[in-house]
Structure formats: C-alpha cells, structure tokens
C-alpha cells in the first residue's frame, strides 16, 4: 500500500469512528428527549385541572396510559421527592389506564341494553383502581361477580384519583344524567373538611336512583384510619338513614381476609409494630409519629420485598386480589338491590 493510500485509509477509519460516536450522542439525545416526554406525560395524563369538578380528574380519551407508582407505603415527602427525581423509592408498580370521553375508566358509552341495569360507581382512587389494570378494578370485578351470580349488569367506573366528595358530586351533576344509571355506588371516605353527606345527597338528587355508599377498606398500615373507621361508619350510617341510603364499611371484611396472611401493623399505646402473621416474626417496633408512619417502616418496605400487607400494595390502595375481594363484598350488598329493581 502506498503511503498516500494508507493515510487515506487511516483518515477514513478515524472519520467512521467519529461519525459513530456523534451518531450515538445525537441519536441517544433524541431518543431520550422523545421518551422522557412520554414518561413525564404518564403522570400528567392521570391528573389535570378539570373545570367541571374544579379539581384534578382523569383525562378523557386515554389509551393504555402507563402509570408508575410506589409499590409500598410511602410518605408524601418521599413521593414528592421521587417525583422531582431526587427520591429513593425503588419498589414501584406499573399499570395502564384507558378512559372514555367522560373521563371514566370505561369504554365509550353506548345505548343502554334493555333488561341490563347500569351501575355507576363514583369514587376516589380506590374506586378507580389506583395501582391495578382496567380489568382488575373493583367495578370490573363487581360486574364479573354479579355475572357469576346470574345478574347481567353493566358497571361503569367513574372513579378518579384524589376525588373528594365535592368533586364527585360536581361530576355526578354534570355527567350522571348522560350515564343514566339504574343504581349508584358512592365510594370513598370523608376527610374532616368534606361535606360527605351533603355532596352525596346532591348527586342522588340529580340521579334519583337507589344508592349504596361504600367506605373504602382501611389498611392496617393506616394507624389513624384504624382508630376512627368504626365510629365514622356508625355516624354516616345514622346520618344517611333518613335518605334510605345504606352505608357499608369494607374494613371488617378485609381484616377478616387478612388474618394469618402477610404483614400487619399493630398499634399499642404509642408504639407501632410490624408483624409477619405467617411466622409471628416481629420486624420492628417504632414510636408513632403524629402523621403517617415512622420512616423506619417505610425503609423496611423499601429494603425488604417480602414485607407486604395482604390485599393492599400501599397504605391505602388494594392490590388486584384486594379488588377481587372488594367485588365480592360489594356484590353481596348490590344483589338484593338488583332484585328490588326487577
């Protein structure tokens, strides 16, 4: 090879190498920017200002939008830190959401089928099925369960993350008549500032259909909820009795099913203890803070994948098995209501 052609070959090699590196840098940057936009969109497709309810609500027309959430109890600070990209949560779960034009986690509404009652489920993240796929949510499981029991029904999921009773009521008044349900399920738990009873009454007034109010089950890892749930149920039941609306609390049914399985949080005096019910192993005991759980418990879940509460994946949301039980427990209450409709 002549000296000239050897030099040309050398420069060709160097040029190719530089082109590969530049291509990788440019291509990598383009790929990153495109997919980073998709990933950040995953949170934004779930929450957005919605003028009708004046609160966040599901976006309309989502098609298999992927959402990634902590797969363990977590503090709000942890969640926010992680959202800003400086967090430590590695235990996460993914699920997909599709919505119709009315922002319901349901297919586009068709005309009502004769003889097939339509059940509208209005509620918060638990009703929506935060953490589970579309066909695993309790409204979906309720429809399956009722079908197994010989009731042909259409159950429509109008749950949304962070929905408070006021927002649910506004959604109900705006969209409920379009859905034209034969039965309403109102799912959620009141917080101190909510007018739970008033908001429910306004929704029922707009729809005028038999209604069942459900108080979502309380995880044992919600020590404050565990203290107040019985009294909360008693009070609401009494308040809604004159309206002919029954209120059921699923906590007891969940606690019964949890017995002997997975981890639970036991509260005694000012101490919280994480116990593995299958081996009676005590994972840790820590002092109870004013709000949420002690950091040691969040850290235990983070570092120890086998620590898991049966039926819940975090301190408030049922997993797929929890939603299946949810469907069964609610079907027990809804079946007699359907009989009365016939």
């Amino acid at each position: 090879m002549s000296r000239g052609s050897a030099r040309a070959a050398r420069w060709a090699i160097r040029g190719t190498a530089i082109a590969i590196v530049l291509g990788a840098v440019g291509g990598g940057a383009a790929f990153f920017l495109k997919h980073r936009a998709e990933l950040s969109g995953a949170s934004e497709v779930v929450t957005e200002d919605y003028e009708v309810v004046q609160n966040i609500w599901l976006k309309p027309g989502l098609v298999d939008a992927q959402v990634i959430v902590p797969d363990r109890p977590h503090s709000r600070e942890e969640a926010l830190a992680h959202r800003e990209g400086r967090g430590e949560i590695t235990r996460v779960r993914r699920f997909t959401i599709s919505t119709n034009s009315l922002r319901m986690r349901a297919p586009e509404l068709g005309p009502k089928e004769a003889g097939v009652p339509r059940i509208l489920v209005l509620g918060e993240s638990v009703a929506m099925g935060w953490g589970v796929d579309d066909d695993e949510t309790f409204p979906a499981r309720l429809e399956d369960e009722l079908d197994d029991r010989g009731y042909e029904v259409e159950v429509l999921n109008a749950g949304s993350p962070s929905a408070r009773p006021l927002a649910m009521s506004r959604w109900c008044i705006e969209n409920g008549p379009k859905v034209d349900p034969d039965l309403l399920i109102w799912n959620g738990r009141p917080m101190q500032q909510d007018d739970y009873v008033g908001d429910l009454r306004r929704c029922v007034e707009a729809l005028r259909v038999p209604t069942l109010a459900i108080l979502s089950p309380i995880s044992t890892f919600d020590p404050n909820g565990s203290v107040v749930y019985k009294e909360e149920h008693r009070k609401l039941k009494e308040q809604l009795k004159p309206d002919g609306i029954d209120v059921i609390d699923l906590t007891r049914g969940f606690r019964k099913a949890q017995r002997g399985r997975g981890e639970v949080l036991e509260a005694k005096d000012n101490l919280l203890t994480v116990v593995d019910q299958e081996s009676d192993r005590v994972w840790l005991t820590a002092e109870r803070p004013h709000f949420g759980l002690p950091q040691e418990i969040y850290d235990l879940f983070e570092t120890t994948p086998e620590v898991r509460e049966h039926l819940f994946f975090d301190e408030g949301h049922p997993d797929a098995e929890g939603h299946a039980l949810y469907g069964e427990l609610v079907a027990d209450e809804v079946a007699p209501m359907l009989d009365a409709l016939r």
Partner: protein
Amino acid sequence: MTKLQREAAIWLGGALGVALVIGLIVLFSLGWLDTLATRYSVL
C-alpha cells in the same frame, strides 16, 4: 495484524464502546433497564 488493522480495531472498537455506554446511560435514565421511574402521579 498490520499496523493499519490495529489502528482500525482501536478506533472502531473504541467508538462502538462509547456508543454502547451512551445507549446504556440513556436507557437507564429513562428507567427502561430497571423499575425505577423518574416520575409518577402523587395522590
């Protein structure tokens, strides 16, 4: 191996190595190679 072949192996091998590292960094930062997401909705 000739001197030219050795030089080609070093330059092209190095470039492919750099491209591979860039690709891995991009995939890791997108959370595609682990289950760690950079963002999710907060309730």
